[in-house]
């Protein structure tokens, strides 16, 4: 244990003395915090859907009216007078449109004089002109809606019906009192999505770093001295735990900075990032256990794979099989996020290769009993210890074989023979 701590201290120091590592961590943390402070420092209400500065109330509250005259950006041609001015203003906004009579709409749009134009041909037909249709453009739907209303009003008038009465029956407002007794999948989805990505990135990035560090020690022969000074298990455990601490420190600093900054500036944001950045404590705790567990499991395996090759340029080849498993688990988990109580994710949540992601998603979004969580946790912890032991043996056997990369199957065969 003492030697594991010695190795851990030495390895961790390498991360913490690495200017690139520290610099990148602080830069991302500061940048994230600073970006989240922007709505407090500047009025971004024109750019983002946030309350204007000086009116730090939640998004639902009305914003102050600006004194600027709105610009005409729509042309409407309605020769039959089907829509009233009030209706068009309701759909397109006050002062943003004007009637035209000539057929010059296309040219005006091409010259970017206006954004879009409408020709109302009848109660059932209209033309919509636009240069580039954006994903979020809603003006067509809004005008279409008022055209339908106009048609309904005309029908009521022709048939001596009371439009207001009919409208109130068809569009009756229902009061819904929502009380979620379990989990709100809709709001938890984004946390899960982000954390799945975060663990995936940690495993890939730090796994590669750990594998490279092991290969580098083999390449510069320091392994030969180390292995005669302590046990391979101490070396591997110290190295992997140091990598885990470094990664947790890096991700932790960045997360604390971003989440903290958002908490402080939440009012200025009008709560619009709550679904991503207002993460409940229990979700963070679950992430900490299963995320870190999965990371350690893969980190040990990365260490063992690193010991199979002698040159750092061969590391990516050595870990390619492991990467394949990680990618498959990642994509399967993401796909299954929309069905967190399905059988596939249930199975995945008990396998050590995937429980870090699947069980985390089930806890955050689905129905899972405490017994299942405990079983999955125990399997994960046992698998981490198993992976650590197996990796230490592979590390011991592979680490002093120089030359061509050693096949994983060959090492396993030799392990069997050694018994």
């Amino acid at each position, binding site marked *: 244990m003492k030697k594991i701590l010695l190795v851990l201290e030495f390895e961790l120091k390498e991360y913490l003395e690495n200017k690139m590592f520290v610099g990148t961590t602080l830069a991302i943390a500061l940048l994230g915090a600073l970006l989240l402070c922007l709505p407090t420092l500047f009025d971004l209400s024109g750019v983002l859907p946030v309350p204007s500065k000086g009116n730090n109330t939640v998004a639902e509250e009305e914003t102050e009216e600006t004194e600027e005259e709105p610009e005409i950006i729509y042309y409407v041609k309605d020769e039959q007078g089907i829509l009233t001015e009030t209706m068009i203003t309701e759909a397109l906004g006050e002062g943003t449109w004007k009637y035209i009579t000539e057929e010059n709409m296309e040219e005006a749009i091409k010259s970017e004089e206006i954004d879009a134009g409408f020709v109302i041909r009848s109660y059932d037909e209209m033309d919509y002109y636009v240069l580039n249709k954006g994903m979020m453009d809603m003006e067509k739907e809004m005008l279409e809606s008022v055209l339908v209303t106009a048609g309904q009003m005309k029908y009521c008038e022709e048939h001596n019906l009371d439009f207001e009465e009919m409208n109130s029956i068809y569009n009756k407002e229902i009061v819904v009192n929502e009380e979620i007794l379990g989990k709100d999948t809709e709001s938890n989805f984004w946390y899960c999505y982000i954390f799945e990505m975060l663990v995936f990135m940690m495993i890939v990035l730090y796994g590669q770093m750990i594998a490279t560090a092991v290969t580098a020690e083999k390449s*510069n022969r320091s392994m*030969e*001295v*180390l292995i005669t*000074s302590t046990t391979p298990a101490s070396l591997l455990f110290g190295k992997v735990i140091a990598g885990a601490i470094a990664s947790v420190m890096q991700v932790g600093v960045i997360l604390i900075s971003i989440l903290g900054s958002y908490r402080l500036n939440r009012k200025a944001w009008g709560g619009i990032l709550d679904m991503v950045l207002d993460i409940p404590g229990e979700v963070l705790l679950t992430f900490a256990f299963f995320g870190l567990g999965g990371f350690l499991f893969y980190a040990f395996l990365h260490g063992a794979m690193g010991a199979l090759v002698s040159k750092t340029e061969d590391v990516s080849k050595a870990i390619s099989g492991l990467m394949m498993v990680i990618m498959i688990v990642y994509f399967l988990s993401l796909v299954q996020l929309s069905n967190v109580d399905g059988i596939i994710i249930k199975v995945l949540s008990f396998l050590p290769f995937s429980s870090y992601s699947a069980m985390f998603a089930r806890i955050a979004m689905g129905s899972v009993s405490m017994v299942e969580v405990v079983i999955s946790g125990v399997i994960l912890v046992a698998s981490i210890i198993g992976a650590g032991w197996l990796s230490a043996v592979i590390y011991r056997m592979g680490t002093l074989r120089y030359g061509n990369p050693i096949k994983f199957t060959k090492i396993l065969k030799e392990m069997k023979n050694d018994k």
Partner: protein
Amino acid sequence: MKLEVRNIRKSFGEKEVLHGISFEVESGNALGLLGRNGAGKTTTMRILMDVFKSNNGEILLDGKPFEPAKQKIGYMPEERGLYPKRIVQEQMVYLAKLRGMSKAEAVKSSEKWLKKLEIEEYANRKLETLSKGNQQKVQLAATLVSEPDIIILDEPFSGLDPVNSQILKDVVNEMIQEGRLVIFSSHQMSYVEEFCENIVVINHGDVVLKGELKNIKKEYGKNRMILACDDFSNEETKKLISNKFSSFAKVTGENKEDVILELEPGKSKAEFMEALLKEKVNVAKFGNYEPSLNEIFVMNAGDEA
């Protein structure tokens, strides 16, 4: 302290690379492990250090199974083994602590060895910024920082200039004088001759020669002598022996300034000398021939290219 290696065999896959290596060495002595490239020296050392497991055989320390982890051992591998991007003293302290020293002891010992090897000015430099020779000295300092009782050095002199070699020689001699057990391999036979009382020559995984160097030299010099004559070149001396003294000795080789001869069976050195004087040969040099370790090595390990 007596270290015994008994009948060590090692195979990598189908190929057996060590076919039963045996030798022994005691504290206060240095053993020279000699052999050509690929002979099995490094594998033997790695087995000694428990880096590799042998397939057969045993290693005993004072009659009990040798467990390197429980001994104070300093091992310097052939291709060196330190972190190029880490600070020199930092990694020395790390290695010393891994071998059981406290931090204070490790710092003190690292300072001592850096000073002794005249590299204290590089204590806070990254290893990769040092010259090859200084890196080599740092490696030795890191080997000795834990004050080991058993020191195993694989090619310690490679890459060192004469001045640094002298510093290293002094340190190794001091270790031997202090009663430590030293095993080292080298291709530079002069160093082996200087330090080692015992040698083991390994060739193709077999011990082809072992024993006390003094006795080996004596054995290889038995019935052989050197001869130099005034005003005669080596060629003329060889002709003289072949023409007039072939019944006493035959020429087996030559050095720069003398000829090496082997006595014919039944003849003594005194009889040969008497014959030379009788023929009025102006003998400049006549004496026992003592082969160099290099010659002994070539005779034993230089059989095949």
